[in-house]
């Protein structure tokens, strides 16, 4: 693997780590440019100079933890799985004229399910806007 490829690979991993920590596009770009500029000029190995991409991201953005990312993942999983399940079971509930899980009328189940999935979509849009 050539030096250019090693640097490019390192910058890719660093961009991912910064992104996962919720850094804005401008902040990610600024850090990547500084690291690339230094590596090109010094001609050194990225990992020996800046540590692992995760360590590097942590040192540049000490206040940005992965907590927000994992909360987003957890909320996404819960919203889509439960929301999708409620919506689908709601459709069958309406078609078969039965309560979903023995308590929810079909239309209610569809509504709550779609509300959860919709909230998840809004959350993603908001997160995307926040990072610009």
């Amino acid at each position, binding site marked *: 693997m050539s030096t250019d490829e090693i640097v490019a690979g390192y910058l890719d991993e660093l961009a991912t780590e910064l992104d996962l920590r919720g850094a804005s596009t401008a902040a990610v770009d600024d850090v990547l*440019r*500084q*690291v*690339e*500029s*230094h590596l090109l000029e*010094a001609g050194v190995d990225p990992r020996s*100079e*800046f540590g692992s991409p995760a360590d*590097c991201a942590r040192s540049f953005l000490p206040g940005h933890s992965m907590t927000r990312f994992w909360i987003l993942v957890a909320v996404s999983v819960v919203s889509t799985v439960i929301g999708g399940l409620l919506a689908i079971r709601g459709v069958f509930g309406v078609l078969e004229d039965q309560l979903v899980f023995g308590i929810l009328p079909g239309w209610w189940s569809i509504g709550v399910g779609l509300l959860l999935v919709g909230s998840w979509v809004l959350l993603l849009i908001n997160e995307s806007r926040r990072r610009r």
Partner: protein
Amino acid sequence: MLSIVAEGPTYGYLIAQRLEREGLGQIKGGTLYPLLARYEQEGLVEASWQPGGTGPGRKYFTLTDAGREHLTEVRRRWAEFVRVAGALIEAGVNR
């Protein structure tokens, strides 16, 4: 580092080279740049990107007025530390 930036606009790699040349050892990029980023966030330095020889250009740092005040205060405290430590060491030698 602030003393080096106080001499005029400079960028990370040059600062690292200067520190090494002055005998302070090799400062890794992973130590240097986050510190510069912190100085920038605290308003002690301001930065601007300028084209370099190759690649993405160079981020030049300049000391701000707040940075100059901070540096003056750090120098005063350092001089005081050296004076006290020197006096203690001298007292130990002369005992």
